[in-house]
């Protein structure tokens, strides 16, 4: 079975959904890894990327109650927090100098009271203070929410943010598109179709985005393939996705019972994504969710990016993250080297950053 898929892939042909499903069920992880690595190498050579970035989560107060989320709080609930613009700028100022970050990644809860102007001011203030810093911010779910609270269309919302300095959009909030599973996981959240529509609009106004998939909870392999299929289809139309990032479910402090995904499932998911998503340039093994160890191994299973320095991570850690919150650029580079790949510090568009050392 794998031999047939291997031939197809090597000839540059697309694999079908039923073939992807078979790959998920396959026990032959070594063939999977070798075909996926072949494709990764064809796309990115021996390079593997990391970025000097910092995460900022402005608030954990959220009107949605996704069952898999351990981060969100209601207003007034114990542990709820809101960062002011000054606090955010201060966090960035420290990191900007100490860690020489090139990108800030901002995602947060859907705050019931904050107006759209708060986010515009946030983006403008960051841009003013750090003109060279790339702002990758607000998942499709947040963009949809901003459009609702501002009364603007999705495109107007995106364009306004872009004018203030928004550089690109992260891939969060995709979870699993399949409606039956999505309704159990996150009934209040926008539908999978809406998520895809927001991304299509972002691509249309010239914003590059990522895409994610949350796996390892209550979904089936079929649901995973359905998810990948919808992403591949949209990417065919827009070409606006940069990286696909499979996110391993974390079970602690959430309302969904379950366990951590197995290391083998993590690696297999990376490999199948690499093989099926032939129109995505990059597959990211996000180390915060996979752990440093599996993330490094993922470079042998088709991934070409392990994300970055992060500095402070709250969302995965609320649900029992298994790693420390940060790795230095040197550690990231070392992990990549020891996997036999060439470490490349990238900017937010996968261009190599040259530094005078």
């Amino acid at each position, binding site marked *: 079975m794998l031999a047939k898929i291997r031939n197809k892939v090597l000839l540059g042909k697309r694999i079908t959904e039923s073939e992807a499903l078979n790959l998920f069920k396959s026990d032959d992880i070594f063939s999977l890894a*070798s075909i996926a690595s072949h494709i990764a190498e064809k796309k990115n050579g021996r390079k593997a990327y990391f970025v000097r970035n910092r995460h900022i989560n402005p608030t954990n107060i959220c009107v949605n109650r996704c069952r898999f989320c351990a981060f969100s709080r209601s207003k007034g609930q114990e542990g709820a927090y809101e960062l002011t613009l000054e606090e955010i700028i201060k966090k960035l100022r420290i990191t900007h100098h100490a860690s020489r970050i090139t990108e800030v990644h901002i995602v947060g809860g859907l705050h019931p009271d904050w107006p759209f102007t708060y986010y515009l001011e946030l983006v403008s203030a960051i841009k003013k203070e750090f003109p060279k810093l790339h702002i990758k911010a607000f998942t499709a779910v947040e963009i949809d929410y901003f459009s609702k609270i501002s009364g603007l269309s999705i495109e107007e919302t995106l364009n306004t943010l872009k004018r203030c300095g928004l550089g690109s959009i992260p891939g969060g909030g995709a979870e699993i598109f399949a409606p039956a599973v999505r309704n159990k996981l996150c009934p209040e959240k926008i539908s999978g179709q809406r998520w895809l529509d927001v991304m299509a609009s972002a691509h249309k106004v010239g914003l590059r985005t990522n895409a994610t998939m949350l796996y390892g909870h209550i979904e089936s392999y079929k649901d995973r393939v359905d998810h990948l299929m919808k992403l591949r289809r949209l990417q065919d139309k827009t070409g606006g996705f940069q990286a696909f990032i499979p996110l391993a479910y974390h079970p602690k402090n959430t309302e969904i019972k379950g366990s951590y995904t197995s290391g083998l499932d993590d690696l297999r998911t990376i490999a199948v994504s690499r093989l099926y998503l032939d129109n995505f340039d990059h597959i990211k093994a996000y180390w915060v969710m996979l*752990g*440093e160890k599996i993330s490094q191994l993922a470079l*042998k299973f088709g991934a070409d990016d392990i994300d970055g320095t992060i500095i402070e991570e709250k969302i995965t850690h609320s649900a029992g993250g298994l790693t420390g919150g940060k790795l230095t650029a040197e550690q990231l580079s070392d992990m990549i080297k*020891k996997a036999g790949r060439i470490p490349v510090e990238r900017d937010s568009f996968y261009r190599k950053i040259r530094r005078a050392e």
Partner: protein
Amino acid sequence: MTKEKQKKKTAEKQMPCAPDAARVTSKEALSMLKSGDLLDLGLTADNIRKQLHPEKVVTFVVDRNINYTNVCVNKCTFCAFWRDKDAQDAYTLDRDTLFAKIEETLGLGGTQILIQGGLHPGLDLDYYVDLLRSIKERFEINIHGFSPPEICYIADSADLTLRETLQILRQAGLDSVPGGGAEILSDRVREVLSPRKIKSSRWLKVMETAHLLGMRTTATMMFGSIEGPEDIITHLEAIRELQDRTGGFTAFIPWSFQPGNTELNAEAQKRKSAKGTRKPSTLQPATAVEYLKVLALSRIYLDNVANIQASWVTQGLKLAQVALRFGANDFGSTMIEENVVASTGVSFRTSKHEIINAIRAAGFIPAQRDTYYNILRRWET
């Protein structure tokens, strides 16, 4: 079946394949370690594992590490557990505490205790004999105890031969010997890591003597500190050669050096900051790729050792699951209690339930085993 017979039967079963001309040479092994591709090694190791253990069973033992004392005269530079005799947090367990720990272990379905400790200058042979007897009088449990450095220390303090010492301990109740203290069986490395610890030849001598007395032991290797690939091969060579003669090793357990809170790491930090480099200022633990490579090579090279253990305590459950496809067939112990690795700040805690789930999620049938790898219970899906 009597326990003796059972042990003997297992010993026979555990000679998977007689050494033959086709076995991997040390030269080949060295080149695999230096320049072999991880996935090629993994596939080869996985195929060997399938031949040796075709039933897709992954075993584990329910046991507890009991560290009777942390006072140690050896003070190895890679160790964060040892204390001086007068240190504030130096301890030696009293009997009541010890018995309570064993009782709890049995209550949790445990079949074995792993008793290991520092080389305490105030404890003599009588202490150990009394300790073993007092446990055996009260409990039916396998005592897997005293790594070779301890056996040597006890023998030297009592001015007895290794054989005499092991015989006395065995009569008092010692069943099997853990493979700790091997570190890297290359004296060049030991000179730096553990200058006061027994040399390689003595470690091997203890194991050989134990095997010849009919005791089973495990063998370990701690890599990822300051050794080179040649030292790892030297180590594997020594284990394979002894196993050819005695067949007494039940399992091989490679794990990686954990740098936290150790003198070796502090020294590295000093050296690096002195040079003022930008490199990470501490020793980096072996990465996943390095761990799996050594694990797979162990499975390939040690054709006469039946079982290879994945070390979830040092690598975490996720990597331990992956290790099951890179040569490992055993998940080690549930570790109701673990103190030595935990003292380096690395603490992957887990329960029997989580271990069963982890093995199953990796696509294997979990099974509880005893010290001699006899299966006691399976969890079929």
